[in-house]
């Protein structure tokens, strides 16, 4: 009986591996659960997996958003180009796998104390820097401390405010102590700022040299122009099929596209949506349109008339035809929102919450119930929020007319939009970058006392759950809590969330990738250089 179940499970696993639905790591995990030894599972993966990467070649990668004034200081990483470079020449404690689960990078395993106030990371003893120096606990401690303390200039300081101490327990064990329990700490370690750099031995790190523990080492390069990298033979991870990587900064969208079309580069990190359809017709180019965690939101002040009535808020949410907005404004490069700020590619996304659809009739009757028939509201927006943001609001205003709602679109100046309009006007449009976990996002913008609580939403149950979930180590319980929080946001919250914008990038002829790609950043979680390969 057991044997039969195992066989069914194995067949399904093999099927999933063939179609690329699971990563190698998940495959090994489930195979172990089915009682197979690691070596047998490795063999099985090899015969099942859809793609067989071949090593070799120089990967010419055209990336956007590079600046002459970038630096190797992980605390001030800000441009996309540096994020791509960081994931190519440096490593992190943990990483986001191609299936968007959490996986090991420099840390092979991690464990929390029962109250989630102390986390222990075991480092990979084989990991080394490009200089040849092995990675020790001291390097990790100093790299994390680079983002802590009063004198730190790191932009990621806020993520580590709860950390009270980082200590070593032997050469390859790091212990992080927290003031409050946080079950998400291993997820936070994937943040692009927390790259591990060599320690100087005096508590500081050597970030200037550009030394790292990543799959490729820097041969030469210039900020804002180009980088030449060669494979790091001592790399501790899997992949890194290319011999060399050339990263070219191509800030101009037309230059990027032309370079790809003429074959001057093998991949570009961002495609202009206007020309997406044209590019898709080119048989030599594969366009990747991958959902992200970045979102467009339209916050309404829950303490201001008329939005203080939940029926009005729901009516406004029902009055938007998201499909039409995604088709016409985002050119199909977006994933439908459901009025809670958690994207399908992020951890704890509740898949069984029904999608809110366009329903002007129901919106009308809700408004009638609330005594707000013929509602008239102002919606503030600026061009800089999102390409086509003003058009999006105008389209929404048209759609809302069917529900008898009159939305007046107020076009605000782009300069100073986030200081003069956002958090000041009761109904506006906002663009949000992805945050690694729901806890970070919710604490930042939905918690009752958050400085950026853009909807001024006060929901007792939500705030109670948020605190509970933060230190809950039981995954099932935790998923249930986030499920309930998402429901509360969707049905009571003040955020209308039209869509999550997608990563849109393109590969030239012969560049292959696995079926699944990570969605934490564009180009396979910014790890294209170590995860992709050239067709043999």
């Amino acid at each position: 009986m057991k044997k039969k179940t195992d066989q069914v499970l194995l067949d399904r696993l093999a099927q999933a591996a063939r179609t690329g639905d699971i990563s190698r790591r998940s495959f090994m995990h489930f195979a172990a659960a089915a009682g197979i030894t690691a070596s047998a599972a490795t063999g099985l993966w090899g015969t099942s997996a859809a793609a067989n990467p071949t090593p070799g070649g120089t990967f010419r990668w055209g990336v956007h958003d590079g600046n002459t004034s970038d630096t190797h200081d992980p605390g001030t990483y800000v441009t996309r180009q540096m994020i791509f470079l960081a994931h190519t020449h440096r490593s992190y404690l943990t990483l986001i796998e191609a299936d968007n689960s959490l996986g090991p990078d420099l840390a092979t395993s991690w464990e929390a104390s029962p109250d989630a106030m102390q986390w222990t990371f075991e480092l990979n003893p084989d990991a080394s820097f490009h200089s040849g120096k092995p990675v020790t606990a001291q390097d990790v401690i100093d790299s994390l401390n680079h983002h802590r303390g009063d004198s730190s200039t790191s932009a990621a300081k806020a993520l580590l405010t709860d950390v009270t101490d980082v200590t070593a327990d032997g050469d390859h064990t790091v212990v992080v102590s927290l003031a409050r329990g946080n079950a998400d700490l291993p997820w936070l370690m994937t943040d692009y700022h927390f790259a591990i750099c060599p320690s100087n031995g005096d508590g500081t790190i050597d970030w200037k040299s550009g030394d790292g523990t990543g799959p490729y080492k820097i041969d030469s390069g210039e900020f804002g122009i180009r980088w030449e990298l060669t494979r790091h033979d001592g790399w501790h991870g899997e992949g890194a099929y290319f011999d060399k990587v050339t990263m070219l900064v191509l800030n101009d969208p037309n230059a990027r596209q032309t370079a790809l079309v003429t074959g001057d580069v093998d991949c570009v990190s961002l495609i202009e949506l206007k020309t997406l359809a044209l590019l898709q017709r080119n048989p030599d180019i594969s366009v990747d349109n991958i959902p992200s965690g970045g979102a467009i939101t339209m916050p309404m002040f829950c303490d201001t008339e008329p939005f203080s009535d939940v029926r009005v808020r729901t009516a406004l949410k029902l009055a938007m035809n998201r499909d039409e907005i995604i088709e016409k404004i985002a050119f199909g490069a977006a994933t439908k929102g459901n009025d809670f700020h958690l994207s399908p590619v992020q951890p704890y996304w509740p898949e069984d919450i029904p999608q809110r659809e366009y329903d002007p009739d129901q919106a009308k009757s809700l408004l009638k119930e609330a005594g707000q028939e013929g509602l008239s509201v102002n919606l503030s927006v600026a061009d800089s929020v999102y390409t086509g943001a003003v058009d999006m609001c105008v389209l929404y205003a048209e759609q809302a007319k069917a529900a008898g709602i009159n939305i007046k679109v107020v076009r605000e100046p782009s300069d100073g939009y986030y200081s003069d309009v956002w958090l000041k006007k009761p109904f506006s449009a906002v663009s949000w970058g992805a945050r690694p976990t729901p806890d970070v996002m919710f604490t930042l913008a939905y918690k009752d006392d958050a400085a950026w609580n853009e909807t001024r939403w006060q929901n007792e149950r939500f705030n109670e759950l948020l605190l509970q979930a933060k230190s809950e180590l039981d995954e099932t319980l935790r998923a249930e809590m986030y499920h309930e929080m998402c429901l509360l946001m969707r049905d009571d919250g003040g955020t209308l969330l039209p869509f999550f914008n997608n990563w849109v990038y393109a590969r030239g002829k012969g560049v292959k990738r696995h079926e699944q790609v990570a969605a934490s950043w564009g180009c396979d979680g910014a790890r294209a250089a170590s995860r992709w390969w050239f067709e043999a």
Partner: protein
Amino acid sequence: MGDILGLVAKRLGMGLIILLVISIIIFFMVELLPGDIAQAVLGQGATPENLAALRKEMGLDQPAVLRYLHWLSGAVTLDFGNSIVTGASVAQTIGERFANTLFLAAYAAAIAVPISIVLGVLVALLRNSIFDRVANVATLTSISSPEFFLGYILILYLAVKTGMFPAIASLSNDMSFGDLLYRTFLPALTLVLVVTAHMMRMTRAAIINLLASPYIEMARLKGTPPWKVIVKHALPNAWAPIINVVALNLAYLITGVVLVEVVFVYPGIGQALVDAVSKRDFPVVQACCLIFAATFILLNLAADVGSILTNPRLRHPK
């Protein structure tokens, strides 16, 4: 000859004074730029504490006048200080970029100057002919189109459709000189198209202007062939305005090529300046502006000296 040297020395002295005034203007204009560098460096996630820490580290808490004097004393010895964003030396940061820009400008000038002067002489010779009209219409069309548009047209026809030249002018250290010329041909050609009309039409106008002079009439009457009238008699007297317009266009080739650099992803100084402004990287912005100002002053000086040398009346003042 001594007069000339004295004149050059006087002009140089004037240039230095102008440069000093410009340096004051540059420094305090940059001070007026809105926004805060620490904010720009740290981005959206910055807290007030790390903003303050970074500002102190960059010396932004000192008064502007003090920082100006400090900067000026360094600039005199070509030490423009360190970039506040990257910490690297400014001279090093923009040195290579400036060399790239000079190379592209020289490349474009080497094509554009002979072509426009020869064309100018030819159209003056054949004025009001079909050739004159065609040359004028073609060069006026190219000067009337924005650089980036010309660039895209060239990319479309010479890179995407025919694949004759690379669409992006990315440079690497191990390139041969021939390879370099090939890779940067499209941006150079764009610049040539932009500056040719101005120089050609100025040459044409200067020569035609002179053709009405009595001494040209004299030359014609004694039976000199038309090309010789122009090359031997008209051109020497037309040099002064031509040199001036060439100098002006050379200055433009160095300081006005930001758009061309962006379109072809050419690592020149214009791109560095734009990046620096967006990052509030004052030392880099100031150094770039000062270099541009010095370029203009030097080229104008060269134009003045050049027109004096080609004009005996100015060479031997009464």
